[in-house]
Every structure is written in structure tokens, then in C-alpha cells.
């Protein structure tokens, strides 16, 4: 099994791609699907696997820089013996190449096949072969010729227990070609950006085909971070709660980067922060807590996908106001996690005790936290993310 390193996807693939199988990242035009293949090979190679990256549309000398942009060091010194770039580019422009594997005529499918087979044979142990762009190969060698070759490569790789991964962009090729790429060509297909027509805020990925296990039909919103790569993305998480409960502190504790509009230590407009944690990215919106700001709170809380209710564990008088803020933000029905903040204060109530005093559904989890010390906030985040993923 070779993991893809794409968050959530390995779960949908039931652990990863089994040896001898193939996967295509089927990206719609306008979506940067190439990063999926890059992330997959860098994850595999850094995990100790052998990998070959077939560069068809980029000068191989630039390939390592492209990986570096995402923070993945594939430089010669690091993975020299396990990672190799196959140069299927230089031959096109008549340039010299420093790579071990060079395709002399990248626009001739037989020349490419010969080189791919050599790589498959010479890879010292079962590993992964990733195509930077199958669409470029198709543009150079012809649609039918390329599809026939893919079938041949996949069979050959299966004999050697390698995993084949293709980045493919669905340019306006013939209907038959697109159907075959999505259908019979590979063991599994991951659609990238497929339902962007409906949701204009982001890109989605999800499985279109899986033949080694039961297929999970789920679509997840993602975002590409540099550095970082593919992250599951939640565009809006609301942080609300009564005055002085520590909402801004929670936003800042969770975020790599955050800004606040505050005066005299209290938020008057909005806290906004970016979270990047454990394969998940999210933007958090922190509301003011004082009642005079309620109209703005209501206005800005729309379209949230999940909510943190922050409470001061040592101040039970604010609990009712907290529940009221869930009403104002129309959060009922959304995944909610209560952060029982300021657990370090001597008079702080335990989460169980808070639960008995809080008029909210039994199913809402309460997480003890000390936001100023960044304790408990990431546990709460992971919990909320799981709930958000479960709903969608």
C-alpha cells in the first residue's frame, strides 16, 4: 500500500493505493491538479519509497524548485537514490539533460514507452511512478496512442508491483478519450474540481472510481497552500461567546496568522485568522461578545460551517449569554463545540459541571482549554473538523 499523503483521500482509498494499481487525478481546467501528483510522490519518497517523476511539460531542473515551493525537499542530496526525475522534456527543445533517464523523442509514444519500461524494470523495489502531466503526453503523442500506452504501462507496472499515478487535465479532448480516462484506464479516479460550478468559493475532490474496495462517495473542499500542498479547507468557522470569555485568544492560539480589530482589549469588529493544522486549513471568524455589537455579529455569521462557543469556565453568569449568542448567530443545526476556557483559574468549573448548567443539546461536546497557553484548542479544532466532515 502506498499512501497518497492527501488528507482524507487515503481513508477513502481504504489506506492508500495497493501495489500494482493505478490512479488518475482527473482535474478540470482551471484547477491546479498537478500538486496532487507532486504531494503523492513526495509523501511516498519521504516515507522511504522509491519514486520516479515523469516530467513532460517542465524543464527537469525546475522540477525540484517546484517541489521546494511547497516545502518538499526532493533535492539530490536528500533522496538521490530513491527519487528520480525522468526527463521527457529536454528532447522537445533539443536541450541537454543531466538526468539519468531521458526520453530522446518525447513526441513519439514508443520512445516514451521504452523509457518508462526501463524505469519500471530498474526501480530497485516496488515504488511509485508519477506523471507530471498525462495531458501533455496526449497533446504530443495523440489521444488514442497515449491511452493504449497507459494500459500497457499499467500492466507492466503491475508485474513489478509498482503504483502508477497520473496527473490529467480534462482539456476538450474527444468524449471517448475523457470517458476512457475516467473509466477503464486506471484502477481508481480522483476527480479534482469536479463540482466547482455549484460552489464558487472553492475546489473539491472526490472519488469517481475505485475497483479494489467499496467506493466512498464524498466530496471535500480543499485549498492549496504554499508551502504545505493540498489541505482540506473549511472557509468559515465561527468563534463566538460572551464578553471576556477569550474568543480572540482562541482565534490567535489556533491561527498561524491572525488579525483583530480591538480597542482596550475587547474585540469591536472581528477577529480573523488562518489555521493550518494536521492536513486541515480553515479560516476563523471571531465575533465580538458585547450585546451592542449583536447586529454585526448576526451579519457576519452567515455561511459558517462550524461553530466554537467559548466560555469562561470560572464565570457561570456568562453561560446563558453564550447560548443566546448561538441563537443570534443562527448556529443551531451546525456542528458546535464548546471550549471551556480558563481552566487554569482556581474557581473554574469542570466540563461536566458546565454541561449541567448549559442549555444545549446533550450531543454538543465540551472541551476543557487554556487558550492563552494553547492548551485544548487544537483538540477542539480536530473535534469540530470531524463533525463538519461528517455533516458534509
Amino acid at each position, binding site marked *: 500500500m502506498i499512501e497518497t499523503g492527501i488528507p482524507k483521500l487515503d481513508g477513502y482509498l481504504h489506506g492508500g493505493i495497493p501495489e500494482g494499481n493505478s490512479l488518475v487525478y482527473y482535474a478540470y481546467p*482551471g484547477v491546479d491538479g498537478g500538486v496532487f501528483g507532486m504531494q503523492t510522490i513526495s509523501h511516498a519518497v519521504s516515507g522511504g519509497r522509491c519514486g520516479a517523476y515523469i516530467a513532460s511539460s517542465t524543464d527537469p531542473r525546475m522540477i525540484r524548485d517546484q517541489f521546494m515551493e511547497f516545502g518538499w525537499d526532493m533535492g539530490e542530496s536528500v533522496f538521490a537514490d530513491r527519487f528520480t526525475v525522468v526527463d521527457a522534456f529536454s528532447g522537445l527543445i533539443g536541450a541537454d539533460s543531466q538526468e539519468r533517464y531521458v526520453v530522446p523523442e518525447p513526441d513519439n509514444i514508443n520512445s516514451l514507452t521504452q523509457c518508462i519500461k526501463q524505469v519500471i524494470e530498474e526501480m530497485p523495489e516496488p515504488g511509485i511512478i508519477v506523471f507530471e502531466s498525462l495531458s501533455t503526453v496526449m497533446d504530443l503523442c495523440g489521444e488514442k496512442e497515449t491511452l493504449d500506452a497507459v494500459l500497457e504501462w499499467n500492466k507492466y507496472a503491475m508485474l513489478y508491483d509498482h503504483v502508477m499515478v497520473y496527473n490529467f487535465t480534462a482539456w476538450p479532448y474527444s468524449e471517448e478519450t475523457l470517458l476512457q480516462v475516467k473509466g477503464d484506464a486506471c484502477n481508481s479516479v480522483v476527480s479534482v474540481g469536479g463540482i466547482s460550478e455549484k460552489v464558487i468559493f472553492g475546489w473539491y475532490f472526490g472519488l469517481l472510481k475505485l475497483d479494489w474496495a467499496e467506493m466512498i462517495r464524498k466530496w471535500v473542499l480543499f485549498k492549496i497552500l504554499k508551502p504545505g500542498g493540498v489541505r482540506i479547507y473549511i472557509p468559515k468557522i465561527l468563534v463566538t461567546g460572551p464578553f471576556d470569555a477569550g474568543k480572540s485568544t482562541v482565534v490567535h492560539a489556533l491561527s498561524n496568522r491572525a488579525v483583530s*480589530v480591538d480597542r482596550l482589549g475587547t474585540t469591536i469588529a472581528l477577529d480573523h485568522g488562518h489555521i493550518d493544522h494536521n492536513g486541515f486549513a480553515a479560516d476563523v471568524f471571531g465575533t465580538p461578545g458585547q450585546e451592542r455589537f449583536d447586529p454585526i455579529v448576526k451579519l457576519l455569521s452567515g455561511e459558517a460551517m462550524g461553530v466554537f462557543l467559548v466560555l469562561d469556565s470560572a464565570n457561570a453568569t456568562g453561560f446563558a449569554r453564550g447560548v443566546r449568542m448561538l441563537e443570534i448567530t443562527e448556529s443551531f443545526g451546525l456542528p458546535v463545540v464548546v471550549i471551556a476556557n480558563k481552566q487554569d483559574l482556581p474557581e473554574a468549573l469542570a466540563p461536566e459541571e458546565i454541561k449541567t448548567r448549559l442549555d444545549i443539546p446533550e450531543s454538543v461536546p465540551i472541551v476543557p482549554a487554556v487558550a492563552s497557553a494553547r492548551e485544548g484548542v487544537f483538540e477542539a479544532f480536530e473535534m469540530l473538523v470531524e463533525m463538519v466532515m461528517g455533516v458534509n
Partner: protein
Amino acid sequence: MSTSEMLVKVLGDLQKIGEIEASAIATRDGLLMSADMHAKGDPETFVAMSATMLGAAETATSELGKDVPNRVIVETDDGKLICMGAGPKALVVVMTAPGAGLGLVLVEMTKSAEKIAKLI
């Protein structure tokens, strides 16, 4: 053409008048839909704050029984920030260059806002 590509075109046309350093389209509740920031600043934060500003201005005027504002203009020494509603769901915001003429920018922004309102 997808909706998001159309929004990119609307912003692109708006940029053509020059003197615009950053522009963005967002939902009224502060979610980014499209931005052209010329690699300056963080678009998500920029639109979240702009939406807060516009929302706060609307709340302030309607508290006194006045109509909702047509736009919010923030003047700084090195540019003007203009935020405008674009239909009930969206808003458009631009940051101009220091010496930009307000008239032309407002006319063009109004046109863009009308187009955005029809798209969303």
C-alpha cells in the same frame, strides 16, 4: 464560462481603468469569492474586514432610520478604500493608488457591482 471565471473577468475589467491597487468580490458575510491583490496582503482578511465595515456602516445608518449607505469610502494618505454592495448577497471592494480620481473609480465600480449582482 463558470461563475468564478466571470467574476475574474469583472475584476479584470475594473482594473483596466488603472489606479486600482487591489480589488475583491466577497459575500456580505465576509467570504472571499474572487480577488486581484497584486500579491499584496491577504485577500481573506481584506474581504472579511471590508464586509464588517460595510455591515457596520449599514447598521449605523439604519439605526437612525436612514437608508442603507451606497458605499463606504475610507481615505488614507496613500489611497482610498471603497466598499460597495453588489446585490443582496455580495460586495465589491477596491483599494486605489494615492492620486486616483474618485469619480471614474466610482462609476466603474457601480457598473461592476451591477454585473456582480446579476451573476450571484
